[in-house]
């Protein structure tokens, strides 16, 4: 089985099998690490201010002085891409962690609690899922200031239902297992069983889903920034770069959308490859 139960943040989830097995997993992780190195070690090796305006060099094509060109204000695209990578990846990561923890807590409470609680929590979840994510995000974006500290919980807020449902189903399946009943027979309490047996049973699947979730978060944050609801200018993010470059690409400034687009694409590809590989490994292991 494939364990992904959540839809995409903005789009129905479509996933292409990139490669199977450990090769894909390793390539995905390597690619992701490369992007991390690019974003964090990059500014150190290429120390240029992403906010500095070079008024004489507006919309320069990639060349010797500006490897990836400049934007409409004459800012260095490579420097902005690096700084934008930091913002995009860090916020996506935190959003995934928040979504993961919230989802696990909610799902395990529903799956291990009494059945009336399960029914109540699941109906609540259905209600939340019925509200379009984007509408929810726009609503919250309107009432809280959009900065790096707020965006992660905001994205995490819409990310947890998928994980919650997955955790609930896994917990429900695991709690009737004979090894759980055996532990109960030895005097194990509810929390011991949840922690030692149920969490252990579902952790691999949850981790794999977290990689897909991370991909969703990158896409979601980029989408939000593209709509102008993400990281606010002049600060850079990949989605924001795409947004500001979109209007200028039609007059020939292709470098303004190609490079941020490529970065987003590679990051999502990396996470999906890593997730696919891990999933294939888990299925091969014969879980259960």
């Amino acid at each position, binding site marked *: 089985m494939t364990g992904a139960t959540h839809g995409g943040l903005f789009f129905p989830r479509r996933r292409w099998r990139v490669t199977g097995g450990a090769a894909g997993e390793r390539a995905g992780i390597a690619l992701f690490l490369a992007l991390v190195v690019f974003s964090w070690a990059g500014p150190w090796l290429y120390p240029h201010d992403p906010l500095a305006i070079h008024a004489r060099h507006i919309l320069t094509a990639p060349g010797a002085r500006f490897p990836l060109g400049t934007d409409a204000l004459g800012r260095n695209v490579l420097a902005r891409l690096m700084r934008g990578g930091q913002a995009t990846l860090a916020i996506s990561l935190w959003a995934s962690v928040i979504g993961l923890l919230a989802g696990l807590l909610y799902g395990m409470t529903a799956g291990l609690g009494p059945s009336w609680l399960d029914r109540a929590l699941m109906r609540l979840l259905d209600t939340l899922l019925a509200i379009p994510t984007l509408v929810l995000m726009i609503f919250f974006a309107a009432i809280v200031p959009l900065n790096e500290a707020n965006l992660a919980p905001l994205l995490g807020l819409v990310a947890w239902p998928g994980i919650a449902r997955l955790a609930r189903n896994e917990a429900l399946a695991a709690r009737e*297992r*004979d*090894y759980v*009943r*055996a*532990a*109960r*027979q*030895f*005097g*194990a309490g509810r929390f*011991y069983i949840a922690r030692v*047996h149920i969490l*252990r*049973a579902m952790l691999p699947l949850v981790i794999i889903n977290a990689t897909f979730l991370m991909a969703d978060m990158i896409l979601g944050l980029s989408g939000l920034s593209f709509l102008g609801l993400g990281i606010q200018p002049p600060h850079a993010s990949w989605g924001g770069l795409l947004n500001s470059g979109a209007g200028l690409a039609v007059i020939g400034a292709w470098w303004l959308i190609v490079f941020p687009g490529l970065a987003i694409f590679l990051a999502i590809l990396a996470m999906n490859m890593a997730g696919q590989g891990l999933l294939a490994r888990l299925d091969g292991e*014969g*879980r*259960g």
Partner: protein
Amino acid sequence: MSAGLCVEGLSVEYVAKARRPEKQGRRQSALVDIGFTLSEGETLGVVGESGSGKTTLAHAILRMTPASSGRVLWDGVDLIGLDERDLRPYRRQMQLVFQDPYEAMNPRMTIGQIVSEPLRLAYAMGRRARLKQAAELLHQVGLDGTIRSRYPRQISGGQRQRVALARALATSPRLLVLDEPTSGLDVSLQARILNLLRDLQARQGLSYLFISHDLAAVSYVAHRTLVLFAGSLMEQGPTDALIRHPAHPYTAALLAAVPAYGAARAPRAAPAAPPRALDSAPPACVYYPWCDQAQARCRSEPPPMVSLDGQRLVSCHYPLSDKT
């Protein structure tokens, strides 16, 4: 009250949860009025076909399935009435060896962790002491200590059964409920497990409730035997006498279904009973529709449990005599 286990009038019912009102609340009985005693150091066999309530009996005694009525007395204390906290000290004294040892082990835990889990839960023992004790327990069931770092899927079926046994022994129980301990094993392994069980009993004075559909295995280990059919007790008595001279027609049919005991006759399939709906059950012997000795009375009157010679109890209007 005597030491050991005494079960009186134990019944288990499942209430059907149906959407349609006419089906709602319909009760299905899984066990009806079961009574027996099991004294210290004794083995009681429980035989019956699949679905006859053997596993339900085990789970009801260990309070894993709620009983609808009856008493389970352990050293004179009724376990059915205890709440979960008061039950805890008793849980240690009676352990279950699950039907499928593989299912009963967390696939992501090592054998060492699996065997030492009860020690951690029951005695809050430290990690090092636990692992040492686990090696000792494994040694007791004839396994090498090096198996501790393996995972359940990496060991053989016979080893798994031994690990399950070692884990059950961890809390030094006085009663082991063995649910089909030999069903998944080949014949030579079955014999080894049965011998191991007998050794452990001789050394530690354990009582066994030995559940099996394998009459040969039961006759080898059980001092006394219960025969269950459709959740009801058909017959109980010393294993030898029961096998040599079955008093209940169902026991006779069960024995006839085993090639070794059926002598020259071809093995005959023992009847399988569907679960009974309590509300619609006619007042009759549960076995009567399949019984070749049935008479008019069997259809109108449930047979009482009668004593044959002080040791044997049979639930039949017309028990088979010793001569037939």
